[in-house]
């Protein structure tokens, strides 16, 4: 009761609201991530009351995770990497004039995923943190494989499965560029010092999703705006039936993956998306604008918020990079993460956790209120939208590392990606490979060291065996349907 009073004071509510709205805005801008925002604002909270400071940062974390879905749906430009899966379904819905529904599904799923994960954090944090420690490099590798299995799902509705796999591998090969973690030597950098840390996925993301869109728009013969789409979007569409099971699935998946140290919201969103496709009754609509995919992906990445704080607060092991920045804030305020947080500093820790329920409520209200206005983005003439979005794409690519090289990378990814897209290669698969490649390599190489060079390490533990079963369950149905398609084509010809 005492903690609730702290959270529901005027000052605390205002702090949470400001943090959450700022988070939504930051997450909505490609190039600005939740990690960057929390990292930048940690020093500012130093002079604030510790509880208020933590609430502000918690609000930013929750808001930014949702905010990434807004440009993903409206402009095919994921604000954060975790919103890539959302763009796959959200943008086609936008093009069909269903952007208001897509935004509504996204904010609702984000809300449920966020609330569920914070509830789990509040109730079971210490117990779950102990379980997460059983997760080693071999299991991390398998988790990345589970995410990469999504490549098969992306492709199984058309005939270019091989091209989707090739695109995924191109992404994984690009991710290899940079310093080899094992030997410390440089790989494939061609003597360029800008490539020492490898190719950042943010310029790639902006180039492959946002800039390609702008290049295509600029090269279109006609730039007429189809206002009928807006009329359609202004008609209130109810939430699709059966969407709740996809939200529930995404929430649980995101929370579990968030709890695992080092795993992020991107992998959670993709795995949730993949699971959702497997259980969906409308599989054929995936990739063409299925709200179920948005629901699972958004519930998945927001489920990571509470999940990632489980090992952070109880063991001092950050669940992901944002949680690491938040951990810095706890330490700045003299609170060392560990069991002490829940005993000695309970009067700060519990209000912080409870404040995240409020933050989820704030972005739900903001999202539902602004969705109809955001949907009107369709009225902006492409001739003015293209230069504005391009300018932001340049700024977003630059802002992450303050490097002009990243801007050139973004342009290169846009041009190369456009060529690959026209040839039928899946850009979603490429970006999936680029993001999950380093996680897969890290898990594989560390696993090989622990296993003294034997690959049996990847099937030894009971968790690993269970994960292999899930991977096969994810892979077999799309592979079978692909084989059926080939046989069908062969019979026809």
């Amino acid at each position, binding site marked *: 009761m005492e903690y609730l009073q702290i959270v529901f004071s005027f000052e605390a509510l205002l702090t949470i609201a400001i943090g959450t709205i700022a988070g939504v*805005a*930051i997450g909505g*801008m490609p190039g*600005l991530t939740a990690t960057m925002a929390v990292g*930048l604002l940690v020093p500012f909270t130093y002079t604030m009351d510790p509880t208020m400071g933590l609430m502000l940062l918690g609000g930013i974390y929750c808001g930014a995770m949702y905010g990434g879905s807004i440009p993903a749906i409206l402009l095919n430009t994921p604000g954060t990497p975790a919103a890539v899966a959302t763009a796959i379904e959200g943008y086609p819905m936008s093009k069909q004039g269903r952007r208001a529904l897509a935004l509504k599904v996204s904010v609702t799923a984000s809300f449920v995923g966020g609330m569920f994960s914070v509830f789990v954090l509040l109730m079971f944090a210490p117990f779950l943190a102990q379980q997460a420690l059983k997760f080693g490099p071999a299991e991390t590798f398998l988790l990345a494989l589970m995410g990469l299995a999504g490549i098969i799902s992306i492709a199984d509705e058309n005939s270019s499965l*091989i091209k989707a*796999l*090739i695109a995924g*591998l*191109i992404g*994984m*090969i690009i991710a*290899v560029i940079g310093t*080899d973690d*094992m*030997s410390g*030597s440089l*790989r*494939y950098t061609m003597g360029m010092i800008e490539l020492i840390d490898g190719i950042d996925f943010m310029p790639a993301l902006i180039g492959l999703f946002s*800039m390609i869109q*702008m*290049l*295509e728009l*600029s*090269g*279109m*013969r006609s*730039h007429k705006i189809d206002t009928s789409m807006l009329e359609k979007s202004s008609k209130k569409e109810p939430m699709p039936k059966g969407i709740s099971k996809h939200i529930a699935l995404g929430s649980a998946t995101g929370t579990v993956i968030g709890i695992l140290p080092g795993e992020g919201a991107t992998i959670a969103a993709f795995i949730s998306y993949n699971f959702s496709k497997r259980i969906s009754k409308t599989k054929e609509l995936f990739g063409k604008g299925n709200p179920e995919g948005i629901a699972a992906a958004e519930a998945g990445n927001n489920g990571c918020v509470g999940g990632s704080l489980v090992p952070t607060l109880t063991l001092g092991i950050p669940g992901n990079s944002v949680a690491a920045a938040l951990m810095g804030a706890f330490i700045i305020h003299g609170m060392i993460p560990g069991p002490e947080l829940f005993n000695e500093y309970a009067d700060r820790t519990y209000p912080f956790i409870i404040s995240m329920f409020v933050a989820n409520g704030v972005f739900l209200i903001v999202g539902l209120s602004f969705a109809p206005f955001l949907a009107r983005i369709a009225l902006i*003439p492409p*001739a*003015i939208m*293209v*230069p*504005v979005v*391009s*300018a*932001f794409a*340049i*700024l977003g690519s*630059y*802002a992450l590392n*303050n490097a*002009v090289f990243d*801007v050139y990378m973004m*342009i290169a990814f846009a*041009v190369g990606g*456009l*060529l*690959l897209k*026209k*040839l*039928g290669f899946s850009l979603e698969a490429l970006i999936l490979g680029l993001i999950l490649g380093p996680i*897969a*390599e890290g898990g*594989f*190489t*560390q696993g*090989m*060291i622990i296993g003294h*060079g034997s690959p049996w390490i990847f099937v030894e533990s009971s968790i690993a065996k269970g994960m292999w079963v899930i991977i096969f369950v994810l892979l077999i149905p799309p592979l079978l349907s692909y084989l059926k398609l080939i046989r069908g084509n062969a019979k026809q010809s």
Partner: protein
Amino acid sequence: MAKKNVDRAVLALLIVMAVLLYFSTANYTGIALKTSAKYVQFLAVSIGVLSVVQLASSLLREQSNVKLILTENMVRFGGLLLGLIIFASVFETLGFFIPAAVFIPVIAVLLGFRSYVAIGLTTAGVLTFVYLVFVQLLSVNLPGLEF
């Protein structure tokens, strides 16, 4: 150029890349030989085999001579691309604001937008927004001239 020919050229390039990638692992040293090198070899073999299969299937199948069209309007497409490259090349010396103040109106006009008041207001709005949010609020260090 025919789409099938570009497709085959890309696949052939990928096969060459796979071979080079595989043999590059001979330069790995120490522990990397048993770890990172194996991973890279796996990637090289996978992409090589898949590219060969795709290329073979493309060569064996009858395919139409559809042309590869990257864009319907080369002037606008090329103009935007050129604008982006110029923007990036002067970014470090002139910063964001001056190039953006030129880039946005020029590209808008190039794409056929003729409402000059709307262009001016949009450009001013974007620059003000970037200044307030990126420079003032988030302290992002933009290069070039300072305001």
